[in-house]
Structure formats: C-alpha cells, structure tokens
C-alpha cells in the first residue's frame, strides 16, 4: 500500500498515544517516524516493534542515570525519547556526549538534523560493544547536504552506545566514524523528494499492527454519542 507522509505521521502519533506514552512523546515519535520513512528508513517497523515491546510506557521513557560519560537508560526507544536526548546534547558542554542502551537509535537522526543549524552542525555515531562504528550521520550547519553512512536500518544488536557531537566536534566525529561505511546511493534530500512526490510503500500487515495501537485512543460509539456528541442530529442537519 502507498501512503503519504502525513498518513504515517498521524498513525504514528496515535499509535504512541494509544500505547500510553507521556504526552509530547507521541508528537516526537510521529515527527521521527515520518522523517525516517521519507528518508527511506524503516521507521514504522521499528516503532511497531518498540510499541509491542512496551517501550511507550512512562517508566521506559524516563532517564536511568547521568554519568560523567553521558546518559544511561534502562532500555528506551530513541523514536520516543530521541528528540529529548538531542536537545540535551545541544544544551551544554561537553561537545561530544554518550548515550547508552537505546533501541532504534535511528530515532535520533530527525532531531539531529533539526538542531544542526543552531548547534554549528551535529553528528551521531552508533557504536558496537567492541567500539567499532556501525553507523554514522552528519548534519552540517550550512548548505552542505546531510550524510548517512552504515547500517542505521538494521544495526547489529550489540550496537547500543551512541555518541552525539556538536559544532566542530561533529565534523571530527563523522570523519572518524563514517570512513569505511557504506553510503546510500541516493542522497537524503533526493530520497525525500521522491517519497513526497510518489508516496511511501508500506507493508499492510505492519500498518495494521500500528493501527491496532492507534485504535486504543478511540472511544466506542453509543446512541448518545452519535446523537449528541458531534452536534448535528440525523434529520435536522439536512436542509
């Protein structure tokens, strides 16, 4: 099935709300998933997996601890908390910060792009347990195109540490981590334009799973709600 970006945004927002996430994280997740799908990354699939795993629950969205190296979560979805994490990263020193135990780390990318201009550039790197880089993303502050490298879509399961860098440190981080990683043939901007023009292909079974979470926000109708809830009656609305 073919969907618009707004279709995806709305269903993602409702799905996260229906799954019980704190207010505001539904909007963050919707923006993130829309961005990812436009970029050709499986945002909806990742969201469904995270919602099924209960990661919208308030306890899962809360910070575990802050150490000298950075933030540690119990196990949180970057699709829901990623915007807040990027905001934290740009809010103060140091210029390079770590985040541990995130799932769906590609959820950091949308806010990283959104904040790049005000931060003098942002870069995000996903590291395996061995320290090797699994994926990297660079968002320059000026007109230069954003760059993705490596496996953001299906990262190795051991890759749970993220580094976020801003300003001049962003360029250094990206240069150090992206080298040797595969780069998508089409640039990010071209991919997004194509998806806006033609729509986004979506697996119907996956979409139904997300819709099942979204359905929890709806209230079953009753005779009273049909008659009064929207205002107009069955007869007098027709002149």
């Amino acid at each position, binding site marked *: 099935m073919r969907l*618009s970006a707004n279709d995806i945004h709305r269903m993602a927002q409702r799905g996260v709300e229906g799954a019980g996430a*704190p*207010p505001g994280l539904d909007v963050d997740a919707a923006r993130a998933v829309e961005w990812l799908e436009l970029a050709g990354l499986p945002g909806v699939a990742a969201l469904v997996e995270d919602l099924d795993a209960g990661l919208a629950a308030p306890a899962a969205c809360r910070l575990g601890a802050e150490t000298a190296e950075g933030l540690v979560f119990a196990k949180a979805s970057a699709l829901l908390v990623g915007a807040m994490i990027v905001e934290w990263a740009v*809010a103060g020193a140091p210029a390079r910060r770590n985040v541990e135990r995130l799932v769906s780390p590609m959820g950091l990318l949308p806010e990283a792009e959104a904040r790049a201009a005000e931060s003098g550039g942002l870069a995000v790197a996903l590291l395996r347990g061995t320290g090797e880089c699994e994926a990297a993303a660079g968002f320059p502050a000026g007109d230069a195109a954003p760059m993705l490298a490596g496996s953001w879509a299906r990262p190795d399961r051991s890759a749970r540490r993220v580094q976020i860098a801003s300003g001049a440190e962003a360029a250094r981080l990206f240069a150090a981590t992206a080298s040797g990683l595969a780069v998508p043939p089409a640039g990010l901007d071209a991919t997004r334009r194509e998806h*806006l023009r033609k*729509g986004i292909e979506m697996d119907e079974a996956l979409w139904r799973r997300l819709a099942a979470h979204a359905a929890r926000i709806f209230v*079953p109708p009753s005779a009273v709600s049909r008659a009064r809830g929207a205002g107009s009656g069955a007869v007098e*609305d027709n002149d």
Partner: protein
Amino acid sequence: MGSGGASGANGAPGAPDAGRNPAGDAVMRHMRPPERVMRLERLGASYPTRLSFMRSLLRRMAREGWRFERERSALDAQGYGHAVYAAHAPGRSFRLVVFSDALAPEARTDRVIAEQWDVSFVLADGAVADADIARLRANVPKQEAGRVGPQELVLSRANRSVRLFDHVVERLAAGRQPDPARLAEVGYLVRTTAVYGNGKFGLADLGRVRTETGLERPYEAEMLAIYLVRWFVLDLVEHIAAARGGAGAARLANPGRRMLGIGNATGLGMAPYLVKHPVLIHNWLAAREEAFARVRALPAAEPAAVRRFLELFRRAHRHVGEWQTGDRRFAERIARLRAELQAMLERLPAVERRLLGEPEPWDRLMRDVEARCSIETQELLLSLILEPHGGLVDELEDRLAARTGERADPRMSVERLLALLDAQYGWALRLDFDRPDATHLFWYYSAEKEEPRLGERHAEPGAEREMRLGVAREIQAFRPALAAAVAADPGRSVARFMLEQPRWRAIARRVQTVAGNPYGEIRDNMLDRACVPIDLLRCKLAYFGAVRFDPKSDRWTRICMYQGAPQPDELTPATAEDWAFPVWGDG
C-alpha cells in the same frame, strides 16, 4: 512577530517587526494584547477580513492572470456523471475532477459518518488522463473509504440543498429565474462537509504542496477547490435545467449567479485544530491584529479611504440585515449588532467629519465603538476599517503560514520556564478545577470514522481516552512539579528536566512555544461546561473567509463560502477586491 520578551506600552507581547514597518513603535502601542483577543467570546465573534484565505486567493489569481477552462463534461440529463475544470496559473495548472451521483434522500446527511454524497471531487496537480479519471471514479465517491494519490491535493464532497436545488432547476427549466427570497434564505445550492488536504487518505503532503505547486499559503489548495466546485455547481443546475426545458430553459442571472456560494456544515472536527497548532494560530491572529494596529496607528485618514469605509459600512449594514439564523441565542447577538449598526448609520455624517478632521481618527473611531458596542460590532468594525487599507496590510498575508511546529528551548533554565508559565498562564492558574463544571466536558475521537466528539465527563464513558485539549488543567498539574524542580536546582536545564520527567514534555514545550507565540493560546478552559465549541469554529471559518454564520447548536454551524465572489469569467483585480459583505439587493 512573536519575540518572547518584547512588549509595548500596553503590555502587549509579540511586538511587530519595527524593522519591517517604519511605524513599529506606534503600531505596537495599538496592538490589542493576547489576553483580550484570545478569549472564546471574542474569537467567536470573528469576521472575515481582507486577509482571509478566500479573499487572498482571489486577489492572487486576478493579479497573476489565471485562466479558467471547462475541460470536460460527461453528465447525463439528470446531471449525473463527471466533469473536469482547469485553473491555469503561471507555469502550472490544476484540475478539479468532480463526480455527481444519484443519492437517495434518506442517505443524505452532513455527518462525517455518511457514506454517500451528491457530489464528490478532488483538486489535482497538473493534467488528468482517462486512466486517472477511472481511478478517481473508483475512489473519490467513497471519500474516506477510498484512496487517492500524491498528484491529488484536496478531497471533498457536497450535498444538494434540499430547500433550493430542485427549485432552481425547475425555475430555470421553465425559463424563469428562481425566487429571490428563497435564494437569499439559503444562499447556496450545495453544501460541503469535510474538505481534506495535507496527505490525508493518500493526498499530497503539505510539504510537497508548498514547495512544488506554488500554493504556499494556508489552505490555498482547499480554497481553490471550493472556488472551482462553485463554478461546477452553477453549470450543473443549468445543465439539468437545459435537459428538461430544452431551448426555453434560462441561465441563472445575477444576483443569484454571484451571490450563491458554497454552503458548509462545520462540526466539532475543526475545533481541536485551534488548540493543537499554537504557532499557526498565533501567525493568523497576530497578522490580523497587526493589520488592525497599523490602521489605528495612522496619524490621519485619506479621503479615499474614508469614502470607501463609509460605502462598505452601508453595505455591511445591509449585509447584516439579510443575515438569518434560527439559533435563538445567536439571533439575539445579531439583533443587538443590527441596532448598534443602525445607531452608527444615523451618526455617519459625524463619523465622516471626525475621520477627516481628527488625529489618529481610525483609533478614535474604534475606541468609541469599544466603549459603546458589543463584541460583535467591535469585531465587524475591525474588518471594515481594514478594507480600504490593502496597501498597508495585505503584505501580512505572507506571515500566515507556519514553517515550524512547537519547539522546545533545551538550554532554558527551569527557573526561567517557571517565570514564563506564571507570566502567561495566570488565567489558567486562577481557575478552580474543584468545581465539577470546570471538567464537565471531554473531547475525544469516536471509533466511528474517527469523528471528533464532545462528551459529558460524568454522564458518558470514554473520558480516560480524552484528547489532550485541557491546557489550563495541565498547567495547574504541571506547576507544582516545575516549582519543585526550581527549588531543587533553579539552573537545571529544561532539557535535563524533561529527560527526568518526560510526563511534562508536552506542556513544558507548549509554555516555551507560547512565550514566542502569545496569540497561539486560547485563554479559556476548553473542558468547562460553559465552553461553546462553535466559538472555535467561527474563528477558523472567518479566516477561511466564510460568511452567514448560522449555528444549529453549540456544536455545529452552517456557513457560506464565496458568497458575492466573482465567477471565474469575471475575475479581475477590481472584482477580486470588492466582494466583502455581499448583499443580495446589490444585483
């Protein structure tokens, strides 16, 4: 607009850009503050202005020399079939593809839960081939149950007016004009219900519409679709009349041709929008308020502007005289409006002398109106005094769109956030939520076609799934948590606070957003028993340019769009300018 800390002498935040307007300080002085403007009672008395989207679109089309063309008509003798209408802009064209189908009377309803309509249509970007028409035929009449594609910009439907449609056809078929009284009573031949855009049901996303079609202003695509379907509907009645009456059938003459608009039944679906989009709503309200302030700041009135104002005042007086509503409460407001306009009409020579002779005359006029008259009259006069000043205010239509949504400022301290909350939300903090009436209502999405509805919390199930429109209640819940964070560490960043307490993510970001967008927050409790949802509807509909607001309850209303607007074959810069406050008697 929207610098968080600036304020004028009257305390109005969100100062206009002095660099863009040389009279910036004087304009600031005349800006009505958000705490006065952003009340439901005043929003619910909104009138269309020259900045309204329909007005703006017609001026643009006339200025750019758009051409309009009937490309195809495949309608049978009863008017069933399809048609294609083209609008050719410089470098681009759009097509209205419209389907007219038989509909049993018992199936005709304006509710979102309807499944069939008399007319259904899309606005498409570019040319439409036979294969597209076949695809659209299979999907457009189904509306929400069908799928359209990214070449389609707008999806909508309309039902015939049972009171008027057949009467007009019968008269024209007999070679006669319709009864003017019946035309004036109804004002439209068909009535739209939902008008969809922005990626719904597979339509083109707003991002593509803005960047690739040239329709950049809010709702331009939707307004264009309605304008074209109005043209189709006139053709439709004439087509059916000609099929019945043959050579003896008449064509619809003026005033009907110009005065018939497109009706609309608007329900609760539109209401949450004004709460969910504070940046966009701020842009709309701030643009109108700055336009108003610019005129009020003028040191003198141009004689031509005064003549135009007086001419339009007389027309508005007649327009209000023709305004009909069956709602008792609203009828009382209109009656008072009529009386106040009549009193002013009798003083008009004195008004004219003062406008021509006194300093800051438009401001003096408005102070007089504000002291003597109801909110309805005040808001109507706002619209009127903008009319002669297009050269001064029309540029503000470029500020109506919002390029960003709500955005957090992560570096802000929690101490600063608390100060902003206290400065902006005193109205919310003063509300008594221990009163049962304060939380009497809850807004929700029904499982039936996801239709927004309003429930009574203590009488109906579903409040646990309510929409998050209770901003005032949320502010009261938030403040203690924020105050505790300030007490613990006033310098802590908002970013850190939200990570530790994600429960407050939405409201914290909203407080920050509204600080820079102060006309984006409605300063009333949306959950209170006294909340009248149509106040929200009327505000947004006024920005569309709709007239003849006619509430059917406190939850839905009828209005009319493009009433008095020039038809495509008469669209010029002059006609595009002069159709405010349309009157049947003008012909």
